[in-house]
């Protein structure tokens, strides 16, 4: 505490100076108000901790249920009717194919859109304002609706069938708004002085973008992109609509193959009546969460690497 030496030894500690009254609150009205504040504080803290407790319970439940079921055999086997023999290999392969393709499609388009909106377009023009409003609105469209778009356009109209390619295109549209918005934030953070310095050297706008703007904003763009990709990795609903199967007993070899992904495989196991399959499902959830953690770690490492280069 800020204990100052008493000015004179005769000052009684119990004398209620106005300052003391204010700080400690005297037993009357102020005391009640302070007590109320403390209760309020406690309630808010408890409310915040509710989410923490729920996260803990959720992880505990999944881990407890998966004990004894998550082993090498599970990771390297194809799905099976028998819970003991069931494995997650084809779902993992399907997820990696789908997500890889999704990233290849969504990243260039997303970054290009953000570049257009931040560097090229005039934000006051109605067309560009509509694009911006439209993007924030697309972010709120339920993912299952993207599945219906994928079914009508990619599966049927374009004739890609119920394939990895259809799934990846659908997921790419789903995560585009997230990539665009985070990339825009990253581009906004580039100091104008850096760009002006580049122009002063006589280079073109595009050279400034590739030489100055993109390298500077890359950490932010990458972070947003990886967050978006992890979201795609956990999506099941749109892919069910597009027609990913629940049971795939082979590994995909081309983008036009039929496929399943981790969340759909987990859904398939969860909805079976046998008790054992709940354990198989929880082992699958651990694999999914581990994969999400890995991608997020890669995001952080990449970000750090780029950040160091800029400093």
């Amino acid at each position: 505490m800020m204990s100052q030496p008493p000015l004179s030894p005769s000052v009684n500690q119990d004398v209620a100076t106005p300052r003391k009254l204010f700080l400690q609150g005297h037993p009357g009205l102020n005391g009640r108000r302070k007590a109320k504040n403390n209760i309020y504080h406690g309630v808010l803290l408890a409310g915040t901790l509710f989410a923490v407790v729920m996260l803990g319970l959720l992880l505990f439940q999944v881990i407890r249920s998966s004990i004894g079921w998550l082993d090498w055999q599970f990771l390297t086997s194809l799905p099976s009717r028998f819970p003991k023999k069931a494995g997650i290999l084809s779902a993992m392969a399907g997820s990696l194919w789908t997500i890889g393709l999704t990233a290849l499609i969504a990243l260039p388009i997303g970054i290009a859109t953000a570049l257009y909106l931040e560097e090229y377009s005039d934000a006051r023009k109605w067309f560009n304002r509509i694009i911006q409003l439209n993007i924030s609105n697309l972010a709120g469209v339920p993912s299952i609706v993207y599945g219906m778009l994928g079914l009508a356009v990619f599966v049927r109209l374009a004739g890609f069938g119920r394939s990895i390619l259809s799934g990846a295109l659908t997921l790419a549209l789903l995560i585009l708004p997230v990539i665009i918005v985070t990339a825009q934030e990253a581009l906004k953070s580039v100091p104008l002085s850096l760009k002006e310095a580049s122009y002063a050297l006589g280079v073109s706008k595009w050279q400034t973008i590739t030489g100055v703007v993109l390298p500077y904003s890359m950490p932010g763009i990458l972070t947003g992109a990886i967050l978006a990709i992890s979201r795609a990795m956990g999506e099941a609903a749109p892919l069910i609509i597009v027609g990913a199967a629940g049971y795939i007993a082979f590994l995909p070899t081309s983008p036009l193959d039929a496929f399943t992904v981790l969340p759909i495989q987990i859904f398939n196991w969860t909805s079976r009546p046998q008790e054992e399959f709940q354990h198989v499902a929880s082992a699958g959830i651990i694999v999914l969460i581990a994969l999400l953690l890995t991608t997020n770690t890669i995001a952080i490492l990449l970000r750090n690497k780029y950040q160091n280069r800029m400093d």
Partner: protein
Amino acid sequence: MTGEIITFKKRSSKQTQLQEFIVRMILLFCASISIITTIAVVATLFGESASFFQEVPLREFLFGTRWSPTLVPRHFGILPLLTGTLMIALASSFISIPFGLGSAIYLSEYAPKKVRRVLKPILEILAGIPSIVFGFFALTFITPLLQALIPSTQIFNALSAGIAVGIMTIPLVASVSEDAMSAVPDSMRKGAFALGATRMEVTTGIVLPAAVSGIGASFILAISRAIGETMIVAIAAGQSPVLTLNPLESIQTMTGFMVNLSLGDIQHGTIEYKTVFAVGSMLFLMTFVMNLLARLTIHRYKEARK
């Protein structure tokens, strides 16, 4: 923004100008993909729905109380799916609104920096957990808990799924509300503190009223998310499209119906296929209106603070 520094263009070579033009066109094309997406969503949804309504009268769809599109005699009354969906939305908002808003107030007004640095990432982790995992949690943890408390609870029920959806949307309410509260100018807080108000009085008397539109928007976004949530309800809420208001019974939501039907092999052009699109259009309309409302509200308070 960049208008004043592009004068160099006049002197740059023809080749550079051409390159700039091509780049600009490619970027513009990418930017218009989002517009094309919206148009395609609306066109496919309403196109298929239009042929659905040639076979089923709109009145039966909106006001019918029986839903059995796959079994003869077929009934196409969406009310059972609608009440199921709204029950999930209501149950989830009983969790997400108080706990989300409480977290937002705590993080924005009370939490010391150190605590904030721990709690914010935890909420972000919660937001990043796939909904399928919440579905598993609802079925294997929340439902048994409810059954222990109220023995008449069915294995699949609206309440369990609703609670899980609520937990999942806490971070959404928390982050949007916190944004709204941190947009309240600090001078307003300081003024109230100087008058001797406690922190609670500052929060309830100054910050919450000033941030009310943003907080309201966060509630709308959470409810809209709950309406569109699919995997949790597909796992834990059941597949019984019955018209009930009992949250302990098995129900079916609009999204649950769409997933359930899509798990089978539905052929293009059949009434089942069209029904999925008709229900999807309803879902899209509801969430679209709510999101637009929320976004406009947020946009307005951001403009006002500028």
